[in-house]
C-alpha cells in the first residue's frame, strides 16, 4: 500500500493533470529532490523556490489572484510562523473584496513531533491555524485520506491548509487508493525516484528518470467537515486526529482487554470546519469524552472542541471531559525522555481514559 508521501504525490499528479494545478512549489520541492519528504517527486509543475517562506505564501497568493491554482509547500510546519500575517491576508482576501477575488490556494506543510525533531522541528500548527479565519484546515492520518483530502483541497476555490503528520508520512496505508496498483513494490518502481548515497548520485540517477503514473487514479475525494469513526464504542468518546488516532487506538485496545472499556475513536480529519454532528452524537451516546492532541495546552485547538462539546452537551455529560495535550513548555527536547514527557504517550492516554471512565456521575 502507498505511504502518505506517495498518496500526496499521486493526488498532486492527478491535480496537475486533471484539476488545473499550475504551480507546485516550495523549498526543495522541484527536481532533483522532489521534497524533503518525497511528496513532490516527478511532478511536472513542481519547482524549487528561494528559501523564503514569506515569499512562498506571497507568491502563491499572487498566483491565486491571477487565476492560477497553486499548491505551495512550507517545508516544515515549524517554519510557517513567520507568515501568520500573510495567512491572515490570504484568509481575508475573498471577504475584504466582498467576494470579488477567489483564492484557490493549497498550502501543504508537515507538522508535529515523533521524529526526534528537537526544539524546532516538532511543532504543531493547528491551534494557531484554526485561529486564522478564512481557511479550511485538514490533517489526515492515513494515506487514503491524504489522497482524498488533497483532491478536495485542490478542487476547493478557497484557501486550504493541508497539514500532514511527520510521524505518519512513511507509514503504509491499509486501504488501496482507487487506481493504486495492488503490489506496493510495483508502485515503488513506478513513482519513487531513484535514490543514492549523495546528492550527486541522486542528480545523476534522476537525469533520465521519469515516473510512470498509475493509470487508474481518480478524483476520489474525502469531503471537508466529515470526521471518521475509527472504531465504535459505548463508554467514552475520544476526539483526536493525526498520529494520536493510532496512539488512542493502542490505548483503547489495551483498556478493552484489561478493563473492558469500550471507546469510540473519532478521527476529526478536517479541523475547520469540523464535524460537530459526528462528535456530538458520539458524546451524547457515551457521556464521556477525551480530546487528544499534541499541541501545547494553552489556547489549544482541543479547547475549542472542548468548549463546543460542553456548550452543546453540558447536561448530557456524565463525567467531566478532559483535554490531553502537549506539555506547556517552549519546545520538545531532543532526548526521548524529554520528548515523551512533552507529547502525550500511549500510557498517558490510558491514564486519562481510566480517569474519565472511573468518575462517578
Amino acid at each position, binding site marked *: 500500500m502507498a505511504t502518505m508521501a506517495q498518496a500526496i504525490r499521486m493526488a498532486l499528479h492527478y491535480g496537475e493533470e486533471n484539476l488545473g494545478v499550475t504551480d507546485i512549489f516550495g523549498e526543495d520541492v522541484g527536481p532533483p529532490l522532489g521534497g524533503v519528504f518525497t511528496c513532490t517527486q516527478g511532478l511536472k509543475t513542481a519547482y524549487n523556490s528561494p528559501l523564503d517562506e514569506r515569499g512562498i505564501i506571497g507568491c502563491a497568493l499572487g498566483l491565486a*489572484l491571477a487565476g492560477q491554482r497553486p499548491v505551495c509547500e512550507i517545508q516544515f510546519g515549524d517554519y510557517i510562523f513567520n507568515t501568520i500575517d500573510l495567512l491572515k491576508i490570504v484568509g481575508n482576501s475573498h471577504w*475584504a473584496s466582498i467576494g470579488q477575488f477567489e483564492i484557490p490556494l493549497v498550502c501543504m506543510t508537515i507538522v508535529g513531533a515523533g521524529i526526534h525533531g528537537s526544539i524546532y522541528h516538532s511543532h504543531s500548527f493547528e491551534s494557531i491555524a484554526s485561529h486564522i479565519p478564512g481557511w479550511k484546515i485538514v490533517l489526515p492520518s492515513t494515506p487514503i485520506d491524504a489522497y482524498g483530502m488533497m483532491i478536495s483541497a485542490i478542487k476547493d476555490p478557497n484557501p486550504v491548509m493541508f497539514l500532514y503528520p511527520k510521524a505518519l508520512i512513511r507509514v503504509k496505508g491499509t486501504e488501496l487508493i482507487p487506481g493504486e496498483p495492488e503490489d506496493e513494490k510495483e508502485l515503488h518502481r513506478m513513482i519513487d525516484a531513484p535514490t543514492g548515497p549523495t546528492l550527486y548520485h541522486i542528480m545523476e540517477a534522476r537525469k533520465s528518470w521519469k515516473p510512470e503514473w498509475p493509470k487508474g487514479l481518480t478524483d476520489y475525494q474525502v469531503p471537508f467537515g466529515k470526521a471518521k469513526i475509527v472504531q465504535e464504542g459505548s463508554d467514552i468518546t475520544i476526539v483526536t486526529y493525526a498520529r494520536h488516532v493510532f496512539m488512542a487506538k493502542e490505548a483503547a485496545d489495551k483498556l478493552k482487554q484489561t478493563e473492558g472499556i469500550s471507546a469510540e475513536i473519532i478521527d476529526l480529519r478536517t479541523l475547520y470546519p469540523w464535524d460537530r454532528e459526528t462528535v456530538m452524537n458520539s458524546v451524547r451516546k457515551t457521556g464521556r469524552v477525551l480530546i487528544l492532541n499534541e499541541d501545547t495546552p494553552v489556547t489549544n485547538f482541543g479547547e475549542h472542541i472542548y468548549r463546543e462539546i460542553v456548550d452543546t452537551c453540558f447536561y448530557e455529560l456524565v463525567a467531566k471531559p478532559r483535554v490531553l495535550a502537549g506539555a506547556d513548555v517552549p519546545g520538545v527536547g531532543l532526548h526521548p525522555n524529554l520528548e515523551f514527557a512533552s507529547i502525550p504517550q500511549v500510557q498517558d492516554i490510558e491514564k486519562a481514559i481510566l480517569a474519565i471512565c472511573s468518575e462517578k456521575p
Partner: protein
Amino acid sequence: MDKALKLKILDLMITSRCMEERLIKMSKSADGFFWLGGPGEEAFNIPLGLLARPGQGLDYDYFHFHYRNGATMLAMGMDPKDEIRQMNNRATDPFSGGRNFCNHYARYEWNVVPVTSTIQTQWLVAPGTARAQKRHGGDGITIVTCGDAGTAEGDFHIGLNWATQPGHESPVLFIITNNQYGISTPYEQVHGTRTLASMGAGYGMEYGEVDGTDVEASYAKLQEVMAYVRKERKPFLLEAHVTRLYGHSSSSGANRVPEGSEQDPIETWLKKLIKQKLITREAYEEKFKAEVQRMNQLLAEVKQEPEPTGDSIYQHIFKEV
C-alpha cells in the same frame, strides 16, 4: 505630450485633489473615519494610471497598490463616487462593501487586487501575478507601489529576489513613492543610502529614479520603463520622489503642510500650462470650484445609499463550492 493629454492630466489632478479634500473633510466630520491618500503624488500617479492597462485577466496589467493611489485609479477610470462610497463605508462601496478604509481598492474587472493595510506585503504578492503573466505570454505586467519607509521590511528584499529568480524573471514594475517620511520618521533617520532605487543593483535588476512631482518627467520615465518591462519580461525598480501635502493621514491631523515646505505638483503643472497658454488661472479655479461642488453632490448622493447590515459580516467568508 500633446495639449489634450496635458489638459486631461490637469483635469484628473483637479478631480483627484478635490476628491481627496472631500475625503479629508469627511474624516473630520461624521461622514467618515480614518483618511489617508495621495495629495502630492498626482504628477506621478496620474501618468501611471494613464499608461497602465486595466482589464480582467492575464492580458492586462495587475495592480498591487499602496494606500495613496487614488489618482491612479481615477486615471484608470474610477468614478470618484466609488471612493466616496468607501470613505462613507456604504454597502455600495464596490471595493469592500463598507468593510475597509478609503484608498483600499479591490476591483476584479481591472485586476486591482485587494489593497492591504500591512505595509510592504504587496511586494511579495506581486511576483505571483507576474509569474502567471510571464507564463501566459503577451505584454501584461504587474505594477506594485510602496512608500519609502516600508522598504525596511524584509518583504522589500523578497519581492526583488523572487522577480529575479533565474528562470522566473518576471514583468514587475516595482515603484517606490518616496515622500521622505514614514509617518513621523524622516528618511535620513532610517536609511543609510541616498537612493532606494540603487538597491536594485544587488539583484542584477534595472533601476532608476524620477522626480514624481514633475508630470512630464514622470510620464516619460514611466513610458520608458513600462515598455522595458512589457517587452523584456523583466522587473524594473523605480523610485519616484513625491510630496505628502496633508501629512501622513487623518491620525496626524490631515492638515495642509505649511506653504513652501513641500512642492504642490498641481501648482507646478498649472504654472507650466499657464505659461504655455493652455489654460488660465481663472479657468483652473473655475474648474476646481465646480469639482468641489461635484464632490459635495456625490457625497450627498452617497449618503442616501444603503449601509451594510450587521448580518452581512458572514457573507463572502468562503466562496461557496
